[in-house]
């Protein structure tokens, strides 16, 4: 990301050396670029600012035009109403529980497999890895019905298990990401440990897990995001209000609160509760998102 070679715009020194007209043109270009970038940045962030703003307004304030972006006075009762008319706290707890357990299962199973594919010798390794990558092409649409049938047969409908348990079997994409990271760890470390008589699990847990921590964190962050934001899974597996996650709870909240202007503040307060954990995760783990996702584009 910080590679100085990638820049293809002349540095300041060269700009100074340019004749006046060219420098002027360059500056115009810079101003236009920033204008464009700022315009899109506003487009990206404005809806979320609007959400925050509406969540703190009375119904009367909401229909005012021109709108008050910072409402005067604040109307935090929307949040109080949110937690009274809906089991929002339960939704949040359920989402967090499902996401955390999914992250645990995903990290353990994917990193174990990634270690084996990266550093161990066994028959059929390349074939199995190839098949693994091939399964990434199978669309979700094709597998969703039989998966539902399996969990129905197990009697797990209306429980959180169908949303958690599959993650304990790993994911091809995450195995792929972690294998790349583990192949970058010098072989010497492994040889040294083997000479000392360390077993493979010891080498995995004491060398590869700590040294591969940045990528493992990436996997954790992406899995947390995926679980938290999932709508389809909770929609087909959960029926009880008290078992629902934030995302599906929000669609119910809209139904319960109505779409009329008097309830918009509550729905936005709820949406904000759904987004906030992801914004926190993103602000602390931005580099992990970038790492995990941009790798896909380069090697995928």
């Amino acid at each position, binding site marked *: 990301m910080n*590679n100085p070679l*990638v*820049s*293809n*715009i002349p540095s300041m020194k060269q700009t100074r050396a340019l004749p006046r007209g060219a420098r002027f043109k360059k500056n115009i270009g810079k101003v236009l670029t920033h204008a*464009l970038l700022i315009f899109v*940045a506003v487009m*990206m962030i404005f809806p*979320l600012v*609007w959400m925050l703003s*509406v969540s703190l307004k009375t119904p009367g304030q909401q*229909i005012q*035009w021109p709108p008050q972006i910072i409402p005067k006075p604040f109307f935090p009762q929307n949040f109080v109403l949110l937690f009274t008319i809906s089991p929002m706290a339960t939704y949040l707890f359920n989402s967090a529980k499902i996401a955390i357990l999914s992250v645990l299962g995903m990290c353990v199973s994917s990193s174990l*497999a990634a270690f*084996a*594919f990266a550093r*161990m*010798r*066994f*028959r059929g390794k390349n074939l*199995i890895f190839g098949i693994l990558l091939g399964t990434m*092409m*199978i*669309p979700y*649409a*094709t*597998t*969703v*019905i*039989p998966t539902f049938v*399996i969990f129905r047969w197990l009697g797990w409908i209306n429980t959180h298990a169908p949303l958690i348990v599959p993650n304990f*079997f*790993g994911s091809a994409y995450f195995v792929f990401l972690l294998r790349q990271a583990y192949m970058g760890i010098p072989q010497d470390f492994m040889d040294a440990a083997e000479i000392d008589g360390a077993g*493979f699990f010891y080498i995995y847990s004491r060398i590869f897990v700590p040294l591969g921590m940045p990528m493992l964190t990436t996997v954790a962050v992406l899995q947390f*995001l995926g679980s*938290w934001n999932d*709508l*389809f899974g909770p929609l*087909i597996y959960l029926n009880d209000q008290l078992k629902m996650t934030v*995302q*599906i709870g929000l*669609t119910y909240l809209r139904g319960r609160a109505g779409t009329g*202007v008097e309830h*918009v503040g509550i*729905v*936005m307060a*709820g*949406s*904000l509760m759904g*987004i906030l954990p*992801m*914004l926190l995760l*993103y602000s602390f783990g*931005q580099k992990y*998102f*970038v790492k995990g996702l*941009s790798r896909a*584009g*380069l090697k*995928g």
Partner: protein
Amino acid sequence: MPSKKASLTGMRRREELTAWLFITPIVLGILIFQFYPTLFSFYISFTQWNLLTPPKWIGFSNFVELFTTDRFFFNTMSNTATYAVWTVIAGLALGLIFAALLNQEIRGKYVYRAIYFVPVVAPTVAVALLWQILYDPNFGVFNALLRMVGIKGPNWLGNTTWALRSVIFEAIWAGLGFTILIFLAGLQGISSEYYEAAEIDGANAVQKFLYITMPLLSPTTFFLLVTGVIGSFQVFDIPYVMTGGGPANATQMVMMYLYNNAFTIQKMGLAAAVAFIVFAVIIILTVINFRLSKRWVFYE
């Protein structure tokens, strides 16, 4: 030394066993959640099945029904195709432009990038509820802004002409940050030597973009095209929450149609047939993309 040799093969065997232990979860995962569902889905697409009585073999009837008497299927496919074309093309074009702008030596580029990525991490449900409010014909921001310039805005989500366009616009907004991130990663992989050589030959900025950036970025573009098509054909969350498929099925997508058939009216066979048509369309489009890619994708 026979004893040493024996212990060596013993170690190899131990390595092999341990490796298989490590990959057991992911191998089971592929078998249970990928292979078996795909085969089972294929089988039930030739049956009539409501989950309660055993599946009844009916041959190609589900497929025949979808392509002939089904009043909705063609409409959902055409909506999905429209959605896919616009989100993918607009996403690629805007993503490339803004990635190129951000790849320059400009102040605040990391701030811009961070802002553009925020909608990507925000849960689609919360975001869709928010956009529903922005699109509101009476109290929404869009129509309020249009009123200021004397235009009476349409009922964005309630009008058969505008509903699909509005959904597409929101989807482009939500996905742009991801495309920019992947393009940026691709741009940073292009060596500055090419640009320096072109500058010596007197190439201008546009020529450099057309003859260096575009060809060298084509593998990234290709990756985004293929994954974009696969993803957009399975769109569910945004239209499900924003319009529920309405008005008059104007935003009904193929994944929603599958959901309704399988999980609302228990037509598992028909839903599986829909899934396989989606699978077939995705495979055909991917193969076409790979064929065409030989003409425009350039690997260094």
